[in-house]
């Protein structure tokens, strides 16, 4: 399994780093992801029943927001189009990429599954960073940044593993296994959703283009763009209660 995944990371990475503007896009995406996880970990800190974990969550969150800043600085240093800043305020893109869901992860998952999630995701991120560095895909400065960040990720992996171990030792091994399974299954399911959404968008785009050409064109002569300037407007003739209920 490990070797297959590493090969996959390598192949996908080779494409991701080499496509036009690849490094900038990757750094911007990483920056967003780190930022999203910092929010999620703060939400965990606020909601956890495990008061002994709050301090750990705090340091974890601080790491992630520092990582977000490091990656954003890489985006700027790499010099090409700084889409990152625009993207950071583009709420739509945060949602579309699933980085921040409707409710904080902790609310969706609960304590044990959240820890399992941290463990799985951080391990995958660390592996990804290592493959990139080992194969010299990024530039030297980015490699240095990734290696520095990797040290923090090791801490995130180790504390979440330690906590999962505690649950196992307390006789909740089956729950831990189930949580790890759910986390991994959800990742696959979400990847599938993303792919199918893209496919769906592509297909619907073709249909909508056709619709535009066939159905919209005939009305073109009827639609004109108004000039500017003030025009007087009268009050709506409908009684106020009726006006208030109308969507048009």
């Amino acid at each position, binding site marked *: 399994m490990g070797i297959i995944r590493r090969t996959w990371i390598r192949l996908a990475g080779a494409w991701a780093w080499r496509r036009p503007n690849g490094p900038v896009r990757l750094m911007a995406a990483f920056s967003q992801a780190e*930022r999203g996880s*910092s*929010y999620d970990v*703060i939400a965990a*800190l*606020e909601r956890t029943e495990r*008061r*002994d974990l*709050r*301090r750990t969550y*705090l*340091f974890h*969150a*601080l790491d992630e*927001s*520092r990582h977000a800043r490091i990656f954003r600085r890489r985006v*700027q240093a790499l010099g090409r189009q*700084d*889409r990152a*800043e*625009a993207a*950071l*305020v*583009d*709420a*739509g893109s945060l*949602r579309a990429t699933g980085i*921040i869901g*409707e409710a904080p992860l902790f609310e969706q998952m609960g304590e044990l599954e959240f820890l399992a999630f941290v463990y799985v995701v951080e391990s995958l991120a660390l592996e990804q960073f290592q493959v990139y560095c080992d194969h010299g895909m990024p530039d030297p400065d980015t490699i240095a940044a990734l290696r520095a960040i990797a040290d923090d990720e090791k801490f995130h992996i180790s504390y979440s593993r330690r906590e999962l171990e505690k649950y196992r030792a307390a006789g909740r091994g089956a729950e831990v296994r189930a949580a790890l399974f759910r986390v991994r299954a959800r990742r696959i399911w979400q990847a599938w959703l993303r792919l199918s959404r893209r496919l769906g*968008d592509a297909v*619907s*785009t073709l249909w*909508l*283009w056709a*619709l*535009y050409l066939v159905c*919209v*064109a005939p009305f*073109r002569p*009827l*639609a*004109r*763009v*108004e*000039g*500017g*300037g*003030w*025009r*007087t*407007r*009268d*009050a709506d003739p409908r009684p*106020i*209660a009726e006006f*208030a*209920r*109308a*969507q*048009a």
Partner: protein
Amino acid sequence: MAAVLGISALYHDAAAALIVDGEVVAAIQEERFTRIKHDPSLPVRATRWCLAQAGIGPDDLDHVVFYEKPLRKFERILHHTVAAFPRGIRGFPRTMRVWLGDKLWTRTLLARELRIPADRILFSEHHLSHAASALLCSPHRDAAVLTIDGVGEHATTALWRGSAAAPFIEPVAEIPFPHSLGLFYSAMTAYLGFAVNEGEYKVMGMAAYGQPRYRDRIDRLLRRDGRGGYELDLDYFCFHWHPDRSYTDKLVDLLGPPRFPGTPFVPEGVDPDAPADLVADSQRYADIAASVQAALEDAVVDLARYARQRIDAPALCLAGGVALNSVANHRLAGEGIFDHLWIQPAAGDAGGALGAALWAWHCVLGHDRGPGLVRYDLGRDFDRPGTAELLGDLQLPFEDVLEDASESGLAERVAEDLAEGRVIGWFDGRCEYGPRALGHRSILADPRSAAMKDRVNARIKYRERFRPFAPSILDAQLDEWVELAPAARDPARYMLATPTVRADRRQQAAAVVHVDGSSRVQAVRAEDHPRYHAVISAFAARTGVPMVLNTSFNLKGDPMVSSPAQAVATFLGTDLDALYVDGFRVGRSKR
């Protein structure tokens, strides 16, 4: 009991606002919960919190009022897609997916997500909501109301007549899409290399470094018609049909290449070691920004003159995104067209939630007007025992200054911190409704030295060096420090006017005076915020300077902090020296 909930969503800044028995009991933006800046999604969390705050459930709501009419908006979008044939094809699929997926079913969506019967849902109009958010919060009865933004349903600018009796607000005139001052300014914001809906303040800040040398060219883009209105030359803009761009190549031919996002901005006289071509470029962008700002101001003044012609009233209420342009507001106040200017702090789309609720309460349900609304700390607060427990669990060193030293001791302690050069995070009570931090979620610092500005920009907010900071100043001493137009007295209360600082005072408050001598003041009164007023008074007693530097408590790109845990994380992630949370003073600890 009667309760009305206002909702703005699905475009910019989603928010919810709740009126119970005529009183605004809660109002908050969704971004304060989801931590997505300008989050436009349906404000489910904000709504849930508002209801909990009032101790009621969805069933207790008499009405939920959406801030615009979705079908009318859809009609406008379709119309412009057709009018832009064939080039409108680029944006067509995305628009259709968004509308067919969500927005067309607003009523169903609201009913399902907020768990209320569909027949209790009402729909205001976009600009009507803006107008209501200004007029019905103001102390004025007979007033002209101008709403200026990007676009609502069809209108981009609208004039309303406010009156003392029902129907309270009546339409007078409007300017239709795509002729839009808001979208003009946003397009130029994009041209100048900033993010739209976020970077407009930066354009305002940049303009101070330039001269309006490009004014004749900008006047070709935005033509004032001499009858109080304006028109855009649509050859230069494409926001009405292009999915991602707002200006055309023709605009680039006219003004030169656009500014690359993130390029350092070093205009003349700032840094002698900067490369000459960078300085020349920066100066060109500053001059363009100055020209854009001047053109906007002139257009706003024209609109106000037209308003005065049509409506004989001494007060003007302003709302819509353009009303957040504090430089234009002060210029308008100084023109003497109206005796009073009133702007509600959430003048942008977040304020539409409050406006929609107020409109339904007064105009639909027929309740009389009250005295207006002066305090806008309408958001979420946290109890002190919970905060003490949190700080204890985090093993951070903290003291309960409020308990140990009482209110006056707390003010003294904060003033001492500030006077000794410490930059502090200040989290106090309920959070503000709207985009400005008014002393509830603020970063505070000593305003006296220019070095402080650079430190807060570079090491705390991580933002561009050229951006100015604003002071919170004691209202009683305001006139000793700035040349405030009398009509701008109310806007200055909410950081919505930028007067000039008196020349002999500028040195004394160097961190909060912009390069052109202006300053976006917040005039603080004891009745608006007693604890904050006491802090500034204590600082004044120590230093002779009756103001503190006040900037929103967040990092670049984040919304303002809304909970103590977020405040702590932001405090520890930056170079802040101390953090005050509801009377607790928090220090740093080693990891």
